[in-house]
């Protein structure tokens, strides 16, 4: 049996990836880049599911990752449609300019 990389290493990589995505969501002001960073966070969640699936020898983690990918596709299509609609009405995708619902 060849030695394998410990599950904790994969979890650590997922944590770092999640935090890069989170930093992007909080710091970037371009709505499209914010969307891409949300995809990064979803992938970090997927990585965690798959790491535990291998640890436990259980395919349910793969099913969860499968559903996350499908939901991410739906989220991206609706989110990008909203970005297009906002750009049409305001001429910008900077999220600092989109604050009609703030007050």
């Amino acid at each position: 049996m060849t030695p394998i990389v410990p599950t904790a290493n994969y979890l650590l990589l997922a944590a770092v990836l999640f935090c890069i995505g989170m930093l992007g969501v909080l710091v970037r002001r371009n709505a499209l880049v914010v969307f891409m960073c949300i995809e990064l966070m979803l992938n970090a969640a997927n990585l965690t599911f798959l790491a535990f699936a291998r640890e436990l020898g259980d395919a349910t983690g793969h099913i969860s990752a499968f559903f996350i990918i499908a939901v991410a596709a739906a989220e991206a299509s609706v989110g990008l449609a909203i970005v297009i609609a906002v750009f049409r009405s305001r001429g910008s995708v900077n999220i600092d300019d989109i604050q009609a619902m703030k007050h």
Partner: protein
Amino acid sequence: MTMPPVEVVLFWVFTVAIIVSASGVLFSRNPVASAMSLVACFFFLAGIYVLLLAHTIAALQVLVYTGAIMVLFLFVIMLLSLTDTGPLAKVSVSRVAGVLATVAVLGVLVATVSRVPNAGTPAWMADPERLAAFGTIKELGAVLYTQWLFPFEAVSLLLLVAILGAVVVAKAKV
């Protein structure tokens, strides 16, 4: 000197590549460069998924993420012909708060993960038949179409609604 096992080498190669390309998404001034970095990041993540014996999910990752979702992103970026003003041009209260919150979350996650015990090779891998079947389309399909059939149908409905919603929202005149 003995060579480290190939899985260890590949893990570190993919890890460095993922972190570099994810940082590229974060720090590129041009949204197209961000999108291309994200494509690279998803490819290397698919490599990590293969190391985790999730071959089917790795294939889906390349097909759905890099094939479909990122093409959609690039279409929208080019449709809107965006010019970015730069990611970190000015320091504001919300940005500093965002960096602090991210560091705090990273600290909590690392503290939690460091408490995961290193159990070595999982016991189930001793069975060669299970090891060969794990993560294959056959095994995934058997679980998906029996135990998870209803959620699977619900997701197909969700995708249909998302298609209709995207068309309605993005249309010029409703």
